């Protein structure tokens, strides 16, 4: 693949498909949420109310970030407690969920359903009730936005890991959900694609929940939630939470005891 020229800076902001800025941000609400998977209590007693536009989630491997993301997206229901977005239970009302929340899985291979790139992007759109022709047109517009029009007919198994990640992201963005949950979206992307994506995310009207191991990516977020062993350890403004998070990570990193791997 040749180096792609990055999007012009204004491209994302002037997106005709973007919601008008008047749209109210979705409100996440978790009350007494506990989730058990088998014997294991993966999330314990989480209470949370959030309506910020940019929310970051940090935490060690196995602390429950991905599980929390699946819960927010309504892919799993809590064992105890309630989880809602703007007053709607995402696990129950899947139809409403399609417009409210989109999720980028940590592993793109777990997300891709279709053998051809354009089919993968178009699927979510037809699921939302768009006619086929319209879905195809929007898929192509999305591909073009990332300079990937030539991918349309490509079989998905021919894409590299990072390319698959970008495809999954395009499929989620095309549906224009009010809230986008991204589970480590940058892990496989090269620097130009990452920058392009970050700029795109800055431009979208949708609220964003971003899971990341990289504090720098969350620096200017409105709020950061730090999970530890399935509980909220800290929750607040990005600056102070990230500073303490980094300090703690370094401290643990200097210890030699790997037996402490959470999980």
């Amino acid at each position, binding site marked *: 693949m040749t180096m792609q020229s990055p999007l012009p800076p204004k491209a994302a902001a002037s997106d005709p498909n973007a919601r008008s800025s008047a749209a109210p941000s979705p409100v996440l609400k978790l009350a007494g949420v506990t989730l058990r998977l088998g014997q294991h209590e993966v999330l314990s007693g989480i209470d949370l109310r959030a309506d910020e536009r940019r929310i970051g989630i940090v935490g060690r491997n196995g602390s429950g970030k991905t599980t929390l993301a*699946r819960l927010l*997206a309504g*892919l799993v229901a809590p064992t105890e407690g309630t989880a809602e977005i703007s007053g709607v239970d995402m696990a129950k009302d*899947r*139809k409403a*969920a*399609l417009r409210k929340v*989109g*999720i980028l*899985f940590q*592993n793109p*291979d*777990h*997300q*891709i*359903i*279709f*053998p*051809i790139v354009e*089919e993968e992007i178009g*699927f*979510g759109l037809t*699921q*939302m009730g768009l006619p086929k022709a319209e879905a195809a047109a929007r898929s192509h517009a999305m591909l073009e936005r990332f300079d990937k029009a030539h991918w349309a*007919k490509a*079989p*998905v*198994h021919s894409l590299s890991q990072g390319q698959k990640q970008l495809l999954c992201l395009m499929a989620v963005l095309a*549906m224009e959900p009010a809230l986008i949950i991204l589970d480590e979206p940058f892990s496989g992307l090269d620097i130009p694609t990452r920058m392009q994506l970050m700029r795109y995310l800055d431009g979208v009207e949708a609220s964003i929940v971003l899971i990341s191991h990289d504090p720098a990516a969350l620096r200017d977020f409105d709020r950061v939630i730090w999970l530890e062993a399935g509980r909220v350890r800290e929750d607040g403004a990005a600056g102070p939470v990230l500073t303490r998070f980094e300090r703690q990570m370094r401290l643990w990193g200097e210890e030699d005891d790997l037996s402490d791997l959470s999980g």
Partner: protein
Amino acid sequence: MISLTSPVEIWAHRLPAWLKLAALSLATVCLFAIESPAVLALAVAAVAGLFLTGGRVFLAEGFRNLRILWTFLVLIAVWHGVTGQIEAGMAIALRLLAAVALANFVTMTTRLGDMIDVVSFLLTPLRRLGLSTRALELAIALVIRFTPSIARKGALLTQSWRARSPRRPGWQIVMPMAALAIDDAEHVAEALRARGGLE
């Protein structure tokens, strides 16, 4: 045997999918009616000629897509050789070769979406009866999506085995492969749910 649409565009890509599928059905019926190995050999040659109209690269791709078939053909040949029905064995092997190659030709020159549209059209009567055919349409896409991916995972498991063992892997990777396939199924279910499921 499931090959994806060929990236080499040939004349047959421009024919409507229903026409190709109808011709394929007809040709397959004829192939099964023919008994003589000589005539069947001619049919195989004709199919090869058909592939050749797509050029060298296309022909080579067609050959590669038949790889899995060779084992079956050899098995059939050996079995009939042992039981002394050489003529019948030849007929079966040639018929299979021609039929599968022809089916591959259609797959290689038809976009999956168009293929599914034809299937969906044929199932219209079922829909009239109130049955949902979306599940079937999706199933076709899933098979095509996951065949290369499972084959690839098998290859990766083999590599992972080789990286840590001087011996070749055998049946030992069957269980992990099965586990991976089940794992895949669970993930697809979740991915479908994330995008509205099958209602």
